[in-house]
């Protein structure tokens, strides 16, 4: 079925800010989205987590906006907003009732132009504690919470900027200073390092005039340091394995593979492979491990695209109680290897494409998603029109192509295997196998006055 075309304009302000506007009056809603070309890959050793901590500081006020007022103003205008940090970028976005578009543009411009006017040690310290609690909540106090940090650390060498996690380490977060924040801002938060997309119920000449008025006076940084060479061998070169004891009830195996960089058409084939292998109840891994053999509680397999050097294909299987971990690992790998040997059927490929088509249609219904993709394709590939061509790329993938790419990626010398096992139970070491009465006896209930 025909996919709606996203029509947009693409231009640059004299200070280098790239501006993309896409008009659509279906709903009285306008999305504003800024990508800055800075992510955790720009962090130096000893300063991990800094790009993300900085993203929090962006909500602590600027010359004409008080601490936390950015969010208060957006919400009182009936809008939603957030900011996110990832390896290749940091983005900030607002979705507004369309008559409030100008406010969102003014707020983004104020912090791009004058963040340091409002920066204080107190606000930095406060957000450092918030981020440490974000790390505890998202990773440290979550079952299997360390998996992605471990996969990245194995798949990228220690001197590669994708080696460390975006959330950073507690020590580095503690060491971040107000001077670091200032330097980071002056270096990377410049209009010539950003893409601004505006999508929805907008009048393009009016939106452009507002952008010129609010962003036009912000100075470019002519000396943004280039990133080093991120290229990597296509294949890891060895199998790497790690066993992790965690506060979990069921064992789980994670796999990670080095894969072609984001933007490489081979990654499109891997996205479809993810659908065919683990994309739902009809997928191969789900059918075999969960439904037929009943050795796994759940399975997953998906690509995480990065532009520098290599992407990741990651997957997992949660092992059912009483099932040997090795059996699940063997069955999972067998399916991946079979995938690399034999062509997928026409029907499997057609189903994966039909689902991809519906996913694209669903995602592009929302102005927030359209704005984010325009910013993304413009920044990472200098090609915002990819928003209109990605679906055709997916639909042109052949079974032969899927097999070929799978054979390049799903190799024993290109994989990391993490095995999560329940921590040994301290009670069980004292009292042999745990049975019902011992469980009850160890449920010690203290009652205090």
């Amino acid at each position, binding site marked *: *079925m025909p996919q709606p075309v996203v029509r947009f304009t693409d231009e640059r302000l004299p200070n280098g800010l790239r501006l993309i506007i896409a008009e659509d009056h*279906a*709903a009285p*809603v306008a999305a504003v989205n800024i990508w800055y070309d800075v992510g955790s890959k720009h962090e130096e050793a000893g300063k991990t987590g800094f790009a993300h901590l900085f993203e929090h500081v962006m909500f602590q006020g600027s010359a*004409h906006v008080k*601490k*936390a007022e950015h969010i208060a*103003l957006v*919400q009182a205008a*009936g809008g939603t907003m957030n900011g996110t940090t990832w390896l290749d970028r940091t983005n900030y976005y607002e979705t507004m*009732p369309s*008559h409030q578009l100008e*406010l969102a543009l*003014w707020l983004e411009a104020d912090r791009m132009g004058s963040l340091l006017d409002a920066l204080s040690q107190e606000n930095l*310290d*406060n957000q450092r*504690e*918030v981020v*440490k*609690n974000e790390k*505890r*909540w*998202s990773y440290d106090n*979550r*079952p299997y919470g360390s998996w992605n940090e471990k996969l990245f650390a194995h798949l990228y060498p220690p001197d590669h900027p994708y080696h460390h996690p975006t959330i950073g380490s507690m020590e580095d977060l503690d060491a971040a200073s107000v001077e670091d924040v200032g330097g980071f801002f002056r270096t990377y938060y410049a209009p010539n390092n950003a893409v601004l997309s505006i999508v929805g119920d907008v009048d393009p000449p009016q939106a452009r005039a507002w952008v010129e*008025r*609010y962003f036009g*006076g912000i100075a470019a940084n002519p000396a943004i340091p280039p990133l080093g060479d991120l290229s990597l061998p296509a294949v890891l070169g060895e199998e790497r394995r790690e066993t992790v004891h965690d*506060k979990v*009830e069921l064992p789980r195996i994670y796999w990670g593979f080095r894969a072609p960089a984001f933007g490489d058409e081979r990654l499109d084939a891997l996205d479809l492979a993810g659908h065919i292998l683990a994309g739902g*109840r*009809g997928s191969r891994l789900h059918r075999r491990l969960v*439904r037929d053999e009943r050795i796994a*509680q759940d399975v997953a397999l998906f690509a995480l695209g990065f532009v520098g050097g290599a992407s990741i294909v990651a997957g997992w299987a*949660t092992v059912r*109680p*009483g099932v040997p971990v090795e059996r699940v690992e063997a069955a999972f790998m067998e399916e991946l290897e079979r995938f690399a040997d034999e062509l997928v059927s026409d*029907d499997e490929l*057609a*189903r*994966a494409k*039909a*689902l991809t088509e*519906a996913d694209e249609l*669903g995602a592009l*219904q*929302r102005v927030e998603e359209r704005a984010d993709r325009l910013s993304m394709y413009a920044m990472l590939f200098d090609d915002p029109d990819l928003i209109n061509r990605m679906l055709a790329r997916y639909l042109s993938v052949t079974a032969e192509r899927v097999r070929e790419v799978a054979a390049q990626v799903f190799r024993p010398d290109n994989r990391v295997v993490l095995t999560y096992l329940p921590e040994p*139970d301290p009670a*069980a070491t004292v009292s042999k*196998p745990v*049975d019902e009465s*011992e*469980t*009850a006896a*160890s*449920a010690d*209930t*203290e009652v*205090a*006055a």
Partner: protein
Amino acid sequence: MSPIVATRPTPGTPRPYDFPPFERTRLANGLSVIAVHIPGRELISATLLLRNGAAGEPAEHAGATVMAARALSEGTERYDAIALTEATERLGASLHAEAGWDALSAGVDVPVSRLGAALELLAEMAGRPTFPESEVERLRDERLNDLLQARADPRRRVEEAFSATIFSAASPYHRPAGGRRETVHGLDPAALRAAYRRGFDPARMTLIVGGDLVGIDVPALSADLFGGWSAAAEAAPSDPPIADPALSERLVRVVHRPGAVQTEIRIGHIGMARRIPDFHAVSVMATILGGLFNSRLNMKLREEKGYTYGSGASFDLRRAPGPFAARAAVNTEVTVPAIVDMLGELTRMRDARVTDGELRGARDFLIGVFPLRFETPGPVVGALAGIVTHDLPDDELKRYRPSIEAVTVDDVQRAAVEHVLPDRAAIVLVGDADAFAAELEAAGVGRVIIEREGMAPTDDSSPPDAGAGPIEGAPESDRADVD
């Protein structure tokens, strides 16, 4: 070039907005059909709503309704699970079914060009499920494993412990909607079929279809596919359940999780049902207390103290009064000061009138985000399902924005005094009790109960209830302390 512009812009003129108009018809067999045309939205969302949820199932079959919904796609008279999935995927559609406390819904999302074929599959799944023995057995084992997984997840543990603490054992809300180990173990095809058929009466079912419906006669299409259905023999309306409190005084319940770097905190009590006259005042009040980023709770605990990544509060609105909880996950060392601050904000919500600025901010947010919520068909259909589930009038969504606009400072305070009751709150924690127990007792916020447990057996061959620790199935002796 101009310098940075200091003047904050003023808003333009809002574009008029109304919740999309919808048309309701009734088929000859009693099935209600709601069609909602949303121009330009070619991914259609359709939901068939059965008004019997987990709250109405017999206690000994707790979990049957949620599992019955899952089992619908596991086999029908014409298709086994794989064939049904493959037929759906060929359409680029996703077919799903889920149940909550108040209703069971079966739905499909599909590009408009294949709507007819997708509705045919929906009718097959919802009208002719077979609940195959072997698949039900697998779903049952998966739920038992899921209950094990829940024990390892601090967020799920604290939510389940909180519900088990505030609701009396006579209320279904005391347990998870998916059931506990001891009841899930006994679920079989007969129990699932019975749970499903309780709600299977076309006269009490509604089909809602939303999206760009130009040229599509939804009532005629529905009549072909659903018009031949008749009520199951077991069908019976379900009343709102008992929602009695278990507590009459402040109580602190700690689930010990040795070495935890954060404490999950829930403070609250039984709240209110969805269908109450002061719904809009309570919405504004809850938004100020714990809904906005700049809510009182988040500003205090996150932006002032740095104790947490986020704190909020909300009412879970069901047919009978559901839980009201203030929430935060805080680093272990600040557990007790965080509790004191949260209680302080609950008390201040009752005692101090909100400012005009707070009132305006909350009202404008709720009014302003309303159109944003309904950009795509899924949420529009979901909101209409809510109207049906809670017996609300057809103009409820049309009246939403004027009703929020009319809420006053006095209304907010009345709502807080009536619905926020810190003196009768349960304080439920999942965290490292050894790190804060003494400080917690010294703080005098309430009687403290600490639950310590050994790890549950993870061996599938264990007796069915061996894994029931104090969270999933508190031993009766523990529960007596709570009552």
